């Protein structure tokens, strides 16, 4: 089977030849694998999740990755770089580099007090930046026609609504607004929703015929539960998520891969209802997120992407033996009957050794052959 056929079978809950394999990884972990393998090939494939970086085709092949991605180009002049090394993106969010991440340190909506002020900040106009789409259609068409990979559209703006909302407003402020000033929260969430839908529209008008998957997502939970009550989610956020997701789906038979960290079991039914096809990352050790029970309840309705424990097994705590056992356990739980794409339960972090990362992916091929036979 080709990677694309493999994915299309899996996502329709049929068993392909083996579990499809994807990779979300931090640039630091990628660099360590590259160095370990001595890869010298040209790095010309954008592979960023949190921020932009490039990998080589040789790397993706070595890890048996069935997916390739299409990204919009950065807007001219962005990110703005300040003399102190901090940067600012198109939305006016300021970031500082701390250890491994660009962490948001200032927020354009931080001081906003009422609904009218929301309009006053300089929201970007998606129509104004043609450079973002340059060459995109050709790139996607070529990937579609000349390769067999699954093609994933990476959203050119907010992935969905709430992550952007707290980046723009500040995390605590956003959560407080949802309870103490929902009108204000809804005002800026509306602007963000509108922006996300418009940007996806422009992008998918160009490449909608070539992508099989488009990414969306918001983190709705933490290590032990939800950021807010399911009632708040259903009242204020779910309708906006629905707009973003149906906005993607009106461009054709495109599966929505929705990223959502945390212990989010109480919201999974809602996500299915509004059209989410594939859920990433499935952090397996969190309350309610046990892959076995998720599979039991949602097989046939939701495809899982991820499931590998990064906080223990892939961190410095885990051994090579732990890695092999982890792959066996997750594949045994999630792969039977299709509906599973193998990947880390988040971005593979800098504390995962290259030996472990390679073993993880080689084990995925070894144990991911259908029919699944893991004792």
């Amino acid at each position, binding site marked *: 089977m080709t990677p694309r056929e493999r994915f299309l079978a899996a996502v329709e809950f049929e068993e392909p030849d083996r579990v499809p394999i994807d990779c979300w990884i931090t640039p630091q972990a990628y660099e360590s694998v590259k160095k370990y393998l001595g890869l010298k090939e040209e790095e010309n494939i954008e592979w960023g999740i949190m921020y932009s970086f490039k990998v080589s085709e040789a790397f993706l092949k070595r890890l048996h990755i069935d997916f390739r991605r299409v990204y919009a180009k950065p807007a001219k002049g962005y990110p703005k770089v300040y003399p102190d090394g901090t940067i600012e993106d198109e939305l006016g969010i300021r970031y500082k580099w701390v*250890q491994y991440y660009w962490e948001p340190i200032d927020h354009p909506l931080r001081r906003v007090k009422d609904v009218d002020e929301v309009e006053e900040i300089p929201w970007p106009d998606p129509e104004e930046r043609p450079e973002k789409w340059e060459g995109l259609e050709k790139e996607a068409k070529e990937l579609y026609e000349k390769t067999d990979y699954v093609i994933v559209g990476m959203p050119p703006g907010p992935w969905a609504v709430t992550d952007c909302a707290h980046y723009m407003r500040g*995390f605590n402020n956003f959560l407080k607004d949802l*309870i103490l000033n929902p009108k204000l929260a809804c005002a800026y969430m509306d602007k963000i929703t509108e922006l996300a839908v418009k940007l996806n529209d422009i992008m998918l008008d160009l490449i909608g015929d070539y992508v099989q998957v488009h990414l969306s997502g918001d983190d709705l939970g933490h*290590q032990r539960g939800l*950021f*807010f009550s399911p009632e*708040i989610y259903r009242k204020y956020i779910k309708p906006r998520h629905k707009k973003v997701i149906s906005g993607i789906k009106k461009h054709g038979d495109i599966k929505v891969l929705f990223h959502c960290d945390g212990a989010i079991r109480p919201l999974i039914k809602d996500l299915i209802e509004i059209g989410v096809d594939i859920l990433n990352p499935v952090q397996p050790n969190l309350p309610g997120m046990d892959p076995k029970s998720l599979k039991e309840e949602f097989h046939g309705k939701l495809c899982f992407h991820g499931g590998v424990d990064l906080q223990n097994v892939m961190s410095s705590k885990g051994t090579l033996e732990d890695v092999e056992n982890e792959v066996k356990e997750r594949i045994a739980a999630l792969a039977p009957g299709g509906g599973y794409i193998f990947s880390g339960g988040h971005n593979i*972090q800098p*504390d995962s050794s290259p030996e472990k990362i390679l073993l993880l992916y080689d084990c995925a091929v070894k144990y991911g052959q259908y029919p699944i036979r893991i004792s």
Partner: protein
Amino acid sequence: MEILEELKNAIINFEAEKAKKIAEEVIKKGIDPNLAIRKSVIEAANIVGEKFEKGEIFLAELIIVGDILKGVSNIFREAIKQKMENKASYLGRVVLATVEGDIHDIGKNLVGAFMEAEGFEVIDLGADVPTEKIIEKVKELKPDILGLSALLSTTMPKQQEVIKELEKAGLRDTVRVIVGGAPTTEEWARTIGADGWAHDAPGAAKKAKELLQLS
């Protein structure tokens, strides 16, 4: 006392302004602020902690209550300071920090608010705090409890580093160390030789009391 009951209810109903007003009224009326803390702030913190543990309220509500608890306990602490000019009314001194390389402080700030509500004196060193600075502050401030937070699996090893450095500096026996943060576990706390671990802010305040044999 009715007014303290009213204050407690304002806190657990997220009424920040009302809670502040009642707290000021309590002081004006000459009610003992130590009693007020026990009967309103600590009780409210316990109720909210339980509700969070049971999944009846969520992080958003906890953040709101954390702010209110901080505001109200500051009002009472100020009053105690002015009246008695002593610090003996604290249960103990807590130094908090998010370890080096980690800028995340939501969990750590909540721990601070709940510890204060329970009656500890909290000195918060902030986020991304270098190990040497933490050691220096333990030497200088002689806290009863040191709370170390880490959100990332990549920064978690810094908790271990701090404990090792405390040992090297001969300070390990002077302070109880509590660790916390998303990737941490009770087992991790044991492995690195911490004295305690908690998975949320109300739990951390409880653990601190337990370690000092106050509960």
